[in-house]
């Protein structure tokens, strides 16, 4: 695991990828927070079936940076995380709040590379809700 206080970048092409943590330190169904170079934060998860997801870490309902500390599970098969603040449930694939579909977290692409998990610094563009 990196010990510097500034996030390291792993550049490939135009995308900026941030090294989050060694692959083996991300426990299934338990998130970690990752600090991006611009000061944004994402919550990074590994689900039971080994899929990786990253969504904004700040709970939009309370503005606390806590989603990484939520409980991971599923609702009707859709993988989710429940905010520990007021228990709103967010879909990990889309970032959409299942208790209030008008609200959505941005999602980030995640990949594994050289024993490290990387999160793409730029959020995905596939839905533009805010």
């Amino acid at each position, binding site marked *: *695991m*990196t*010990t*510097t*206080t*500034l*996030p*390291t970048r792993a550049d490939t092409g135009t995308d900026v990828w*941030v*090294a*989050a*943590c060694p692959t083996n*330190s*991300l*426990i*299934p*169904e*338990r998130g*970690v*927070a*990752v*600090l991006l170079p611009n*000061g944004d*934060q994402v919550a*990074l998860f590994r*689900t*039971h079936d080994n899929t990786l997801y990253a969504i904004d870490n*700040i709970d939009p*309902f*309370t*503005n*606390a*940076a*806590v989603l990484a*500390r*939520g*409980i*991971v*599970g*599923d*609702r*009707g*098969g859709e*993988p*989710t995380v*429940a905010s*520990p*603040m*007021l*228990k*709103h*449930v967010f879909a990990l694939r889309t970032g959409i*709040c*299942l*208790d*209030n579909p008008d*609200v959505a977290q941005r999602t980030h692409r995640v990949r594994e590379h050289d024993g490290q998990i990387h999160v793409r610094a730029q959020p995905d563009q596939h839905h533009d809700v805010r």
Partner: protein
Amino acid sequence: MRQLVVIGNGMVGHRLVEAVLDRDPDGTWQITVLGEEPRPAYDRVSLSTYFDGATETDLRMPDLSATGNVELRLGQRATGIDTESRTVTTSTGDTLNYDALVLATGSSPFVPPVPGHDLDLCHVYRTIDDLDAISEAARGARTGVVIGGGLLGLEAANALRLLGLQAHVVEMAPWLMPRQVDEGGGALLGHLVEETGVRVHTGAALSAIEPGDEHAARVRLGEDHIDTDMVVFSVGIRPRDEIAHTAGLRMGPRGGVAVDATCRTSDPAIYAVGECASAAGTVYGLVAPGNAMAEVVADQLAGGEATFTGADTSTKLKLLGVDVASFGDCHCETPGALEVVLNDPPGRRYAKLVVSDDASTLLGGILVGDASAYAGLRPLVGHQLPGDPLELIAPAREGGGGLGVDALPDEAQVCSCHAVTKGTIHSAIADGNDDVGSLKSCTKAGTGCGSCVPMLKKLLTSAGVEQSNALCEHFTHSRAELVEIVLSTGITTFSELIAKHGTGGRGCDICKPAVASILASVDGGHILEGEQAALQDTNDHFLANLQRNGTYSVVPRIPGGEITPDKLIVIGEVARDFGLYTKITGGQRIDLFGARVEQLPAIWGRLVEAGFESGHAYGKALRTVKSCVGTTWCRYGVQDSVAMAIELELRYRGLRSPHKIKAAVSGCARECAEARSKDFGIIATENGWNLYVGGNGGFNPRHAQLLASDLDSATLVRYIDRFLVFYTRTADRLQRTAAWIEDMEGGLDHLRSVIVDDSLGIAAELERAMDRHVSNYSDEWRGVLEDPDKLARFVSFANAPETPDPTITFDTERDQPVPAGPVPLGMPETPPATSGSGPTETPHPNPREA
């Protein structure tokens, strides 16, 4: 503004004021209430619980003077009414004008004028003052005689028994409770009452009470006599109609102020309600008809046209542990009526139904020993019988009484206390009230004596409302059922449990923490070990309480609230060094707020080094056992409450449960530790400890009820062991002890039989489970500090472990750090989830230990 004067602040007078306020939101009536008793209205119906642990405060009815339109003059008697000038004079010499006057003076116990009836040792049983006088007289007394074997007489006999006296009941009729039960029922009742240790003398006429030598007095019953230290009269009531009589109002044929169907007396400005009123010649000695009259008068005062046309005098009671119910024409007075009787003394049950001459219509009935059929039968009175009458009273199969709710017509009364019909309940269900709780608040049904609650459940079921106790979409089981599964299969992981017993999927924030709690209480082991870690909600995961800005609060255990100055200083130093906000909690300890995730291990390190451990303020677990100083310092203390609180807190620390558990120990009856507001509370007595269970503060405060009294310390601990393990195994998720006991079939009595009498034969197993918990306990903070893998999770960012979360900033308020920025006001605006499975715990913007 119009002046309303109410004479009498008893149950019905109270209800009247409540009913008037309900209909008078604009405050057109200025209400003055004269109450002769020195205290505001209390629940006279439950008066006898005063000897069973209830206090005056428990019995008190809701305060109505808060609206500003009600003036309550306590300890002031109305002495006269002038119907010409429309004024009332009072014992303090005041004169009150009225536009409307309501008499609610109730009744007084009748004391037969036999020789000796006025001796000092003679008492009556009607008011709190009467009960205080009886307890006072019971000191040093051995024997007490109750004259009158009716409902109240038996309650009085039980009171004497609870005060430690040998109680006798003297009844002139050939059997007990002659008004409610017939000879057959009375015979069984007498038998069951004698079994409780009360001596029954029926067919016995009191001739005199003579001062005695060895005992204070000799009660003469013709040829026989009983030597006694005390006598309680309970032979009947007399309406308190003197003041109305003097004012020239018309009286009823057997006393009481005569009223018409609108509850008006012979003076149109004066109404009478409750036990002082004679409606169509009848004086009702029950509270439900009185309440109905109060509603009628309130309606009339609001310009309505409600009338009172008689009332149901059905009763169901538990006297001295014996169920007695009677309803409708129980004495078979309807011409041609037939009786169907089931008399089974060995089975300790007697049941009689009175049916019409063609056996088609139910007219009334009597149940003694087992009254479980009452809830189903009483609403059927006056209606077509759904089947063979003998079937209906045959020994209860599943559910009792063998009677489906579908058999009831819509106009049948389900709740007789509040006159709620099946039809009303059906429409409430149709309006979306889909559990007993919301039916109660919407229709008032079930909020009186509570005997119709099983009926409400059946009505819900028959209306197709599925009262599912499934935990969530991942399990069709309730929490209690999952405990059973875990105990019997030995499953130790969530993955295995959901794979074998779940509905598919990977769980959620409801079932995961619930299963984590079950596994922890069954299995022990550190809650962050292996797969368990991923089940915990954030508080349990970080062993601290999440606050609104994403920081945590830290609460070290301070058992019993006792702490040395040195340790107090350590807490102060830790708070100062880490910049934490400190606050004293209601549980007699100290909460340190504002710690960031990555600071937690260092904070614990300092605390653990000084001898502290986790206080489990974050978990659904035992929180604190609060104490007063008891014999250690207090002049009044009778036991060492601090030592007991510490012993209990150390015994039960770390116990995971369906909801948080709080406790307290008071060193004497003054109850400075507020033990009766706790899940389990202990109050010291001269002889040991009284154990109360099922109390809580919060949104819906409850007083704990007495489970067992005068226990020695070892027995006390065993009972609490059993109680806690039974609770953790059988309660629903997030169900506190009060609701758990309420939902239990048989309620507190059943709980007592399980805990005290071991009626299920599980006491030894419950104790073993608690012993296992005690020996497996270890401090969770220390567990993290000693394990590098667990410690590694306490970082702000996976890629920048020491960088503080930049979104967390503080302001200073009253010299302490507080979260910066605007306070989010309550819930964010989120429409309820369409799937019905949105946020489930009551959201709280600032969760904290309180």
